[in-house]
């Protein structure tokens, strides 16, 4: 990553809801928008990782076509719509899908207030899951001395998989199954986290947008009501957190296509 900030002058631009967004060649619409201080809701995107494009919460319209903004390459002639009622409704339904598919009991969840799923839901005025809950059967894994896995909350964003493989070099996590039975597994014949190489300082410990990967004996250190997204909406938190950070510059955006 370059440590030089982009110089808007001289850079090509595209339009996001009528605003001019400068971008670096190789950046996606999401990366350029965030860097320019414009929030597009997202869950599987993380500024430190190559965009993945699975949650689709970042869907925008580019020249009239709906696409995922995190994987769509920025280009000079793009006319991107994001904050329209049509797209808000679409995102809202997708977030409801995620609540419907897992078991999310926010009031008793350690992540409540720090959870991106919950925060994006508030951002989009999602007040209920609307659809009939699927109630999947996803047993906990408490085998590890320091870490608890509560799969009920997993939204399958693959960030822990990417972090463990690309940063930690451990491949602790992977996906199994397909369709609605797709689920997270760990790298052990026993199927138990204790039998993997996961350690508390791994990158994989810190990327989960929801509350699956929990440190043991650390519960409720900050009271509910005083946590990150209890104070400010996720749009503001994200933009101020990323302010001044180049995102996705000169990184290799190629590879195997994902």
């Amino acid at each position: 990553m370059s440590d030089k900030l982009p110089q808007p002058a001289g850079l090509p631009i595209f339009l996001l809801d009528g605003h001019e967004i400068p971008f670096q060649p190789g950046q996606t619409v999401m990366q350029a928008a965030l860097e320019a201080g414009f929030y597009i809701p997202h869950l599987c995107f993380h500024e430190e990782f190559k965009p993945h494009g699975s949650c689709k919460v970042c869907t925008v319209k580019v020249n009239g076509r709906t696409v995922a903004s995190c994987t769509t390459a920025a280009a000079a002639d793009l006319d991107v719509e994001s904050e329209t009622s049509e797209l808000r409704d679409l995102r809202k339904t997708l977030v409801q899908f995620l609540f419907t598919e897992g078991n999310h009991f926010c009031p008793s969840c350690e992540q409540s207030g720090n959870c991106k799923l919950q925060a994006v839901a508030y951002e989009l005025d999602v007040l209920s899951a609307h659809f009939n809950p699927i109630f999947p059967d996803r047993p906990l894994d408490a085998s590890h001395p320091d870490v608890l896995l509560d799969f009920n909350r997993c939204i399958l964003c693959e960030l822990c998989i990417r972090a463990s493989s690309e940063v930690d070099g451990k491949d602790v996590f992977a996906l199994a199954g397909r369709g609605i039975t797709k689920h997270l597994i760990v790298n052990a014949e026993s199927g138990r986290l204790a039998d993997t190489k996961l350690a508390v300082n791994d990158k994989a410990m810190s990327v989960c947008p929801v509350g699956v990967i929990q440190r043991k004996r650390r519960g409720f250190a900050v009271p509910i009501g005083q946590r990150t997204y209890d104070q400010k909406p996720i749009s503001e938190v994200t933009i101020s957190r990323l302010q001044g950070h180049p995102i996705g510059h000169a990184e290799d955006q190629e590879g195997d296509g994902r």
Partner: protein
Amino acid sequence: MPEVFSAILVQHEHNPTRLVQILRDVMAAVGELTPKNITAIALGLGLPRARVEGVACFYSFFETEPRGRYRVLFSDSATDRMAGSVQLRQRLLDAFDLKLGEVSRDNLVSIGTTSCTGLCDQGPALLVNGRAIARLTPARIGALSSLIRGGSPVEDWPENLFAIDVHIRRADLLLATPYLPGDLLQAALARGPQGCIDAVRQANLRGRGGAGFTTGQKWQACRDAPGEAHYVVCNADEGEPGTFKDRVLLSDYADQVFEGMTVAGYAIGARQGYLYLRGEYAFLQDHLQAMLQRRRRDHLLGSGILGVDGWDFDIQIHWGAGAYICGEESALIESMEGKRGIPRNRPPYPVTCGYLNQPTVVNNVETLVAAGFIVGQGPEWFGSRGTPRSAGTRLHSVAGDVERPGVYEYPWGVTVRQVLEDAGARLERTQAVQVGGPSGTLLGPSEFGRRIAFEDVPSAGAFMVFDDSRDMVEVIDNFAHFFAHESCGFCTPCRVGTTLIAQMTHHLVQGKGTRRDLKDLSKVALVMKAASHCGLGNTAGNPILQGLQKFRPAFDGKLASTEVLPSFDLDEALAAAREATGREDEDAHFFGEYCAEAANPASALAAHTSRAAPTALSARKSEVP
């Protein structure tokens, strides 16, 4: 590591990109991928164990749970059901006193379902340990259960049980043009690689796999793309329910398929081709291998093709393992690389970055046969059939309520009515035709004058006919379950949307649907169409949207009540509690009065607030420990 594993790994050169083939071979050798087997394979290939497990759990033909020694899977296409598959399945279940999906106590047999096996012209069909049996009748089911009880290996069962018929009902350019092996290669040599591409481009050939992309343009882009190697892949995944024309091409026109691939390889500069063949068509294996061997012997394949120094091209078969999504070209390539079949982000497209990140042409079986003939016979010959925007002919797999199911080759532009008449459908009783499979177009009688062509009703090759005795909501429910079962699960809209739709159509079929279900059905279908990652999710809502538009009365007829929204079934919700407490007595149920009253908004409310529900609930509360 067990010896058989080592042998399999050696045969595949310990190459991790061969993982799907390795798992298939291990399945064939030991019948199951146990946790220990998975660890051994991962070790042997130097892959993270979890990644191997992830691949093993992705493909439906890989069993990670113990199954019976005989694994019976009934094909569950709409036309199999129409031909009585559900009743036949029940017969076999009863014979072994089993429930669907169960394994018998003696581990002898398990019975389940699988997506369409591509035998719709001779259904109902099933697979037993991967081998297809068609034309099921009560007598055949009887024979099957005796054979299973007898315990002899499936390989030793009478051959006639496994006979697969070929019904070619109408032949045109592709199926009727005389051809001798090597003809098309000679023609290709005369034209030169660029000349071949030009001919295919001039003929305006469009892909037959569904998307209709111009083949000449695809070949050109691939030829022009830089790379260490170029590849040709023939897409014979043929997973779209109701489609079986590629099976017929492979069984009766394999030479033309392989020759088309060889011509494509010559045009784009490839030395290696792959036939990605769906696992359901395992019965073609010996035939195809023999054919490849014969072509090598005759210098039509291998090194020095036609005796020309340096013209090297060979073909390998890559087996699928029960995953419709692997027909999508980028998922297919992932599968060929030994991974879960997840569609890639595009661009880049396979023509520049495909198999092993090299330029790759993926074409449908029929496209390659047509391209080969165009090179042999010329673009004008091809243009003698079809319409301005749809040149040539198209093979249709006709099945369902017709006298003569089978493969029909028509010029593009044929009317739906013409096909119905030729196939012996009773027109006055035909209520619907599904063109191009569940992801295609549902047509009602007022549309039978429409033409099958890219400019009117495009088709990926299936043509399912439904007469007025069929329940269209049941048909659409069958399609919905197909998509839910086959969604790869990568993206939220399709992963969750297909399941929600299947739940709601199931409700409707049971007569428990609500108005809210109907509203939600279109909402979910539209979200899937707009936001899904690939064609599966983009089209999976089509049957719902078109069904609601064209067969609305059939849906309305399924509503439990047009007045209220009884979407929550109290009795069903108590099932888990009944199971936990081992109770099945009347007091453990919630039927009759309350449910009947719920159909009336005023009394339902009353039930909630005053009489029936509170008393009933408290009574049960005190009894259930």
